[in-house]
């Protein structure tokens, strides 16, 4: 499962609420990808040496009648994502992937609660496809600041047995945070596994609630990253060894050991500055 570099043609581009989605022809990456993994993209003829940008894989189509594709979802937050949003059909994107450690599906069919914040929800659809194929029950909780910033609630409704929506301003679903309905849902749905993707403070809160209910929780983190291949040491998260509770946390590279971590292993209290940091601009 060594990652590869592919020159990918843009096959499709669409808007999903406040977000952009790009479908890339990437047969080798699509073939090898698992839910939770990411790609590092570079686009444009910019001579000023831009760095790549990491994106979770939203969906893949394995090679069949047509070439395999990978779809990513992003928000325009700076020059890198602005370039990607400006691409046209047939433009080329330089991609590395699939990178990182994916979600680990339950060994047996189980009840899975997928919790997504903002465009973090996008990474959970690929996972939902795989969990359903493994005969797991999938329920969704998705949240965002506003209705516009929810990612494709219609599709979450289609993929999930149930869908619970929260928004900070109450413009869709119940007003509040994704963690608000969690305690009730964990009990009522007899959830066996929680999977979450979204901003770091949300992942910290979801991990805490899941832990209080004794439910294992896997989180896909988002940290600023220069390379995605393990050599820059920018994207670290503090990870503790449950067997050595007194030891200080180790700085684990989220591109190699993550982006999916056991939520109980992350020393959330040590994130500090990082928890407040946004996506790569």
């Amino acid at each position, binding site marked *: 499962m060594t990652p590869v570099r592919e020159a990918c043609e843009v096959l499709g581009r669409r808007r999903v609420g406040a977000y952009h989605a790009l479908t890339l022809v990437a047969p080798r990456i699509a073939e090898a990808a698992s839910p939770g993994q990411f790609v590092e993209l570079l686009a444009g003829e910019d001579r*000023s040496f831009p*760095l790549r940008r990491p994106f979770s894989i939203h969906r893949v189509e394995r090679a069949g009648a047509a070439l395999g594709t990978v779809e990513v979802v992003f928000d325009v937050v700076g020059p890198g994502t602005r370039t990607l949003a400006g691409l046209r059909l047939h433009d080329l994107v330089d991609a590395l992937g699939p990178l990182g450690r994916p979600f680990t599906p339950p060994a047996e069919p189980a009840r899975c609660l997928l919790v997504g914040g903002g465009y973090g929800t996008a990474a959970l659809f690929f996972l939902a496809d795989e969990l359903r194929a493994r005969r797991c029950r999938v329920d969704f909780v998705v949240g965002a600041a506003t209705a516009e910033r929810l990612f494709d609630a219609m599709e979450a409704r289609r993929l999930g047995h149930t869908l619970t929506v929260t928004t900070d301003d109450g413009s869709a679903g119940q007003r509040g945070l994704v963690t608000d309905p969690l305690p009730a849902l964990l009990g009522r749905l007899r959830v066996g596994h929680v999977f979450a993707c979204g901003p770091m403070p949300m992942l910290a809160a979801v991990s805490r609630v899941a832990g209080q209910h004794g439910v294992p929780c896997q989180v896909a983190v988002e*940290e*600023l990253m*220069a390379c995605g291949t393990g*050599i820059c040491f*920018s994207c670290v998260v503090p990870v503790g060894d449950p067997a050595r509770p007194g030891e200080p946390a*180790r700085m684990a590279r989220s591109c190699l050991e993550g982006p999916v971590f056991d939520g109980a292993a992350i020393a959330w209290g040590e*994130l500090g500055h990082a928890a407040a940091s946004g996506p790569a601009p």
Partner: protein
Amino acid sequence: MTVDLTVDLCGVRLRTPVLAASGCFGFGREMAGWLDLDELGAVVTKSVSLEPRRGRPTPRMAETPSGMLNAIGLQNPGVEAFCATDLPFLADAGATVVASLVGRSAEDFGRLAARLAGEPAVQLLELNLSCPNVEHRGEVFATDPGTAAEVVRRVKAAARQPVLAKLTADVTDLVAVARAVVDAGADGLTLINTLLGMAVDVHHGRPKLAAVTGGLSGPAIRPVAVRCVWQVATALPGVPIVGTGGVATAEDAAELLLVGATAVAVGTASFVNPRAVVEVAAGLERYLAAHGVRSVAELPALFKAER
């Protein structure tokens, strides 16, 4: 026309004059899926200290025009773990290894050199005297000729391998520092480290890096590296120099070699292109052939300082 890419760096024969720069290639194993480590001029490891270091909190990086700032804080597993796991991997892969060393005192550097003296898999030592991401400016030994020379003396007393001193351009008189470390016994120099920089998130009114300041790398600093290599090579002819700073293409490498570098190291470019080190070497071979130059060592003689 056949071109000879091999170079002699302080008595060590390198397959190509293109090295993977310290801090931009992990410990080599991370890159083994992307290229053959024995194809490189050498792997300069991430800096190793006596004890493990956790490094700085995040955010540790920020993109800047034609480059980036980093404040990793020298995260590394410590010299014992390096010798137990990373070094055997590099040796098995057939890599030429330059071990980058970092310490908080001249004594630390001396102990590291002594520890690695018995490791035949290490062909050269590089002293990181100039990492800007340290708690105290006093640890940037290369800002002072006297303290830099003291580190080199301690290392040379213990080392079995040739020693490169990696210096910073963040000084008033680089040549004075270079001369001091060469007089103290350094076999060669690596020029330059990242430049101390800072970037501000103006929307939140705070630094972009958790450590506030960080090291600037990438093509943005290449002209500074070229200037430094040229100044030092002119002032201290015959001292081997590894030129580094923003090299992303063969032409960038040629620039440093023309002004007097013996070899070059590719750093930040590996973040964007994992095969950058081998692609720069391949491009250099084409560049030499196109200009009718048979070996890398002939390049400095082709440089004319007057236009």
